[in-house]
């Protein structure tokens, strides 16, 4: 689960990391109220689960209430790189002296945790890291060890924090580590970690997290009841929500062929096969969704899955791809028929069964004698047929 900036800030604040004063707002009335409280100038920042929102016009400085309202009216309806803006953060504008980048993340390849930092933070950090990889410092933390104050100080020194900042930087790094561990995070990133204050007054200078990105491990939700506060109700896809209630892995896509299968890999492979067929046939037909019924699915699970997929108006045909291991194809066949009986659906369904009880499953479908059910013996052929049937005005035998 990726958190919005305003949520990520909460977790950093809970560890005692400084952030600028900020208020989350979802309409221009709330923005005006928040901006008056924060004071001017303030920054209006799109809350959206993607990066590079500044370049997309999602971050604006406001000198007064009129500007704050105007900016929020521009930002709130935006969709940035396919992600809808969920609200804005109205935050104090800070006098930035320098920008650092620091992150702690799960390293899948080395199976440990990585602390990454550079003295060249800010929006261009990715380009700078590419051009000057030597400026990015990396420290591995073994899963059996802890990140302690000595390691944090060493890291802070190696990054090149200005001398006076080392103690503070080490303190921030340690707090980030605690935030990472305590919250079962897979990423805690502060960019920029800014040195702020009056350039002429040393006593006002300090490090402050101006922006943050945090991802949490969904598998750990069972031990974090407090994550309920991060639930995003405003922008959930209705189909994804319904599938989730039934414990199904579903991802809504933009194409025409509904795809249902058992096992994440097989379903991904089925999506690729449908796209490939759409390309080859010149129709550009694409998959409408990813839906994994899991292992050992019952007829009921299959029936629920099919009714979710068929309730999506963009779906023109459905491809059911099951390789029976623990899952029995006869159960799946019964589920398909149950859903069709209930829904009285007329969209074509192409089925490919293999493995456990495949012959029994195919016999059940054959006996049902439903003209909307088509059977194919390989997944490639089935995908091609489902793609053809999804094209408006085209039929196959």
């Amino acid at each position, binding site marked *: 689960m990726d958190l919005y900036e305003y949520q990520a800030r909460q977790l950093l604040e809970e560890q005692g990391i400084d952030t600028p004063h900020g208020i989350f707002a979802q309409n221009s009335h709330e923005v005006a109220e928040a901006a008056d409280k924060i004071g001017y100038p303030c920054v209006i920042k799109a809350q959206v689960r993607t990066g590079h929102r500044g370049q997309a016009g999602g971050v604006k400085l406001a000198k007064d209430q009129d500007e704050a309202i105007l900016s929020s009216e521009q930002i709130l309806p935006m969709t940035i790189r396919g992600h809808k803006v969920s609200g804005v953060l109205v935050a104090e504008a800070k006098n930035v002296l320098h920008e650092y980048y620091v992150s702690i993340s799960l390293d899948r390849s080395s199976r440990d945790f990585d602390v990454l930092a550079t003295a060249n933070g800010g929006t261009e950090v990715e380009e700078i890291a590419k051009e000057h990889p030597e400026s990015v410092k990396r420290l591995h933390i073994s899963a059996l060890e802890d990140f302690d104050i000595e390691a944090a100080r060493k890291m802070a020194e190696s990054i090149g924090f200005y001398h006076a900042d080392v103690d503070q930087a080490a303190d921030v790094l340690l707090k980030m580590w605690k935030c990472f561990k305590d919250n079962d995070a897979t990423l805690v990133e502060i960019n920029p970690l800014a040195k702020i204050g009056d350039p002429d007054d040393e006593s006002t200078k300090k490090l402050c997290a101006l922006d943050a990105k945090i991802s949490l491990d969904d598998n750990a939700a069972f031990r974090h009841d407090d994550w309920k506060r991060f639930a995003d109700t405003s922008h959930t896809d209705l189909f994804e929500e319904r599938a989730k209630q039934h414990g199904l892995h579903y991802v809504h896509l933009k194409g025409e062929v509904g795809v249902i299968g058992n096992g994440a890999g097989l379903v991904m492979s089925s*999506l690729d096969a449908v796209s490939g067929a759409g390309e080859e046939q010149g129709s550009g037909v694409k998959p409408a969704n990813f839906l994994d019924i899991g292992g050992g699915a019952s007829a009921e699970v299959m029936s629920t899955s099919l009714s979710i997929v068929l309730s999506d108006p963009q779906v023109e045909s459905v491809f059911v791809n099951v390789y029976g291991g623990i899952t029995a194809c006869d159960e799946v066949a019964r589920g398909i028929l149950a859903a069709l009986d209930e829904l009285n659906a007329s969209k074509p369904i192409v089925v490919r069964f293999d493995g456990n009880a495949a012959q029994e499953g195919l016999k059940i479908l054959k006996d049902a004698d439903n003209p909307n059910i088509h059977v194919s013996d390989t997944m490639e052929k089935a995908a091609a047929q489902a793609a053809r049937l999804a094209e408006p005005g085209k039929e196959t035998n």
Partner: protein
Amino acid sequence: MALFIEDNAPVIVQGMTGHQGMTHTGRMLNAGTHIVGGVNPRKAGQEVTFHIDETDKDLNIPVYATCSEAKEATGAKASVIFVPPRFAKSAMLEAIEADIELIVVITEGIPVADTAYCVELALQKGIRIIGPNCPGLLKLPESADASDKGINLGIIPDGIVSSGPLGLVSKSGTLTYQLMGELADIGFTACLGVGGDPIVGTTLVEALQQFEADDNTKAVMMIGEIGGNAEQDAAAWAKEHMSKPVVAYIAGFTAPEGKQMGHAGAIVSGGKGTAQDKKNALEEAGIPVGKTPGQAAQLLREIVNGGTPQA
């Protein structure tokens, strides 16, 4: 050295008395796996009865309180774990502390920090974990002797394939079965599902190392999917060290950015971990990548025997 583990090794099942554990213990026993005990502190001292179809006889498997106790009583060398996610860390730690040589974790949904801790501890002690969130390991019999049944640790269906010269390693369960089915005419030494989580106990590289060292394995089918760098790491390793041919298949070319596709580890984030990147890395290392599972199987078949399906 045996490929992963010797065929008739004694095996215990952690979580044997649960629904999933019962079902698959029965299956594994019927596939000829030498299961000698279950572990559940609340049911210690009891026995669970399984029916063996081949002999039409019942078999009683004792339940022990801990892995150590089970190991002491039975000499178990491998454990298969079916316990729910919230108890998985302590189950893994218990097996590691009992010095079980091979721990196969089927459970899906374990927090990655728990896995990372257990995997690191196991690596330091020279213990192999397979998984989590995987279908397990199926070894076909090494010898023609009828008493050698191979070994089936996990949930991979028995009876799809028989012994042959191929090794198979995969991040996905059903794609494992799919490719086993496609290449059933040639046969396998072992089929291994490494699991779909971001951190796993046995990586694609470590699986390739095993197949490279095994005399009976002549070629390898590798199945990857979006997320992480395991395929790129495998490509780099194979280019330097692998003498045997490898053919790959990658799932998830159409997966959108930032969406988890079923498996916890199957996600493209920040433009990283795409199927195309993996395909490019593999092809640069001289590993052909099939466009579909069927095409990947055909590529491997051509390398092994000139392309004709065997009767």
